């Protein structure tokens, strides 16, 4: 019976010739990831186990990115706990303030994730690496602990939804608009327990950064993972960033898909998810005047160089609207430097925005842009649940960097054509 890309990768890592949806398997892991919120719980659990150390010191990545630079004493204590663990076990991929970035932007940039890998991370957006043709999925801290100790994890082989992409997106339409469109179409549990498998000649018109954004938000449709086929764009990216060998998998022609959708990228419009679910989508053409108090451009979803380039193009020579706090967060130190060299950061500061060191901070209401009651924020992040960015009566509108930057200038939710 034919297998999907995801099923082929899982079969190989479980030492099996083939697998079928629903089968329980134990797979070898190429990388186990944790952050400053989830790793302390995982370390606590791992310490209860009768093991000497981690399964492989180069295959564990610990990234201090959520409440860093530390926002309070408790988060400082958490980071200290992880830092000491990393030192004791000689974890080579421990990233702290100064060299860290937002984990899902950082790990591909450091070359730690390549196509064909099986990766688990105690962070739900671990599904990002599917952009490179890897199987990667979010887990909790206990799974992370067991993964760090044994190098293995159990999985139920997922069934699949096929998303066939055709055409080329119009100017100012990006990967964010596509994934919001998909979530709006199938719902926040539309892909529950299953993989989202992207295919079609439209993929050639999506940059690597677009693909990271799309795979990143597969979880917001409930998916176990999202995965892209490997093409020249992927290979070029991996050759620049990684020394690791990669494996290319292709879905069988007779692979089984439980559902199939065809999306013409040329027909997509800039799309916004209204509070309080990522599935509450509207195109820019459908919305009324919504006045905003804050804009955030950044996160594991949209804090990459291409995102900042789009924002800089729109904000160049302009000023943010009075009363709109605009927070821009390059996702890694490398992106920060590159954005500085290209003059983007100067454009942002001159426009009246603030530029922050990499952090997940505002996305989850941690720090660096927490909202008060009644405030509205346009954000390039990934979730707009009740209270996600602060007060339970605040509102988050999810959108692309283009919409976020344009909205910062006008003070109302706007597309770049409107400024």
């Amino acid at each position: 019976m034919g297998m999907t890309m995801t099923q082929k990768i899982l079969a190989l890592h479980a030492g099996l010739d083939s697998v079928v949806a629903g089968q329980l398997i134990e797979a070898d892991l190429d990388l186990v990831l944790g952050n400053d919120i989830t790793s302390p719980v995982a370390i606590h659990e791992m310490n209860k186990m009768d093991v000497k150390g981690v399964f492989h010191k180069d295959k564990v990545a610990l990234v201090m990115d959520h409440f860093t630079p530390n926002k309070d004493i408790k988060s400082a204590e958490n980071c200290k706990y992880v830092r000491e663990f990393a030192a004791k076990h000689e974890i080579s991929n421990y990233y702290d303030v100064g060299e860290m970035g937002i984990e899902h932007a950082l790990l591909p940039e450091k070359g730690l994730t390549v196509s064909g890998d099986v990766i688990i991370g105690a962070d739900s957006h671990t599904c990002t690496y599917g952009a490179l043709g890897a199987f990667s999925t979010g887990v909790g801290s206990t799974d992370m602990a067991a993964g760090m100790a044994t190098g293995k994890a159990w999985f139920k082989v997922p069934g699949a939804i096929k998303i066939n992409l055709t055409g080329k997106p119009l100017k100012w339409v990006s990967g964010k608009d596509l994934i919001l469109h998909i979530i709006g179409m199938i719902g926040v549990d539309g892909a529950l327990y299953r993989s989202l498998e992207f295919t079609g000649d439209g993929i050639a018109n999506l940059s690597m950064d677009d693909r990271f954004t799309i795979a990143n938000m597969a979880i917001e449709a409930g998916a176990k993972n999202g995965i892209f086929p490997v093409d020249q764009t992927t290979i070029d990216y991996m050759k620049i960033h990684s020394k690791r060998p990669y494996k290319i998998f292709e879905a069988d022609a007779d692979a089984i898909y439980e559902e199939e959708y065809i999306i013409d990228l040329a027909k997509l419009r800039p799309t916004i998810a209204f509070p309080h679910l990522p599935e509450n989508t509207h195109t820019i053409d459908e919305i009324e005047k919504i006045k905003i108090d804050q804009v955030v451009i950044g996160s594991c979803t949209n804090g990459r160089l291409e995102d900042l380039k789009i924002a800089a193009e729109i904000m160049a020579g302009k000023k943010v609207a009075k009363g709109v706090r605009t927070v821009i967060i390059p996702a890694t130190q490398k992106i920060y430097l590159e954005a500085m060299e290209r003059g983007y950061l100067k454009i942002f500061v001159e426009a009246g925005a603030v530029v922050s060191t990499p952090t997940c901070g505002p996305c989850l209401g941690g720090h660096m842009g927490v909202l008060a009651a009644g405030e509205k924020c346009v954000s390039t992040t990934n979730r707009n649940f009740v209270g996600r960015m602060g007060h339970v009566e605040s509102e988050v509108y999810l959108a692309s960097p283009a919409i976020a930057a344009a909205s910062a200038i006008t003070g109302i939710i706007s597309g770049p054509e409107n400024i």
Partner: protein
Amino acid sequence: MKATGKVFKYGNNVDTDVIIPARYLNSSDPKELAAHCMEDIDKDFIKNVHPGDMIVANKNFGCGSSREHAPLAIKAAGVSCVIAETFARIFYRNAINIGLPIIECKEAGDEIEAGDEIEVDFDNGMIYNKTKQTSYQGQAFPEFMQQIIKAEGLINYINQKKS
């Protein structure tokens, strides 16, 4: 193994941000987390919950982040079981891994109301509504998942298997 308790009822897509808001994630102490459990969706939950009580909801319970703090908070609040039509997959894994019993059952999610008294039999997945005198067949756990729950989590289970 059976549990009995009063029901707290919620709807679709109860996300991990309302189960335990991120502003409390600078701690991983279950007792501290429990003090804020469900705070952003039901601020009286923690005042009214008693050991053994249950949460019943509809689709996609626990969607959102991978924070294990969410099932930890629910368990430490004294909840003996969460019943929902479906669970988000990371929450599902996390709940089993920390030993919080969960059962998938659409009819129970549709028909059980807040305040109903419920008995759950984990061995066969039966849910009895003592208040309404009705019963529902939920999805029973496979043997190995029951053992993980009995051991109060995956790590204890792995340790017990070794010894």
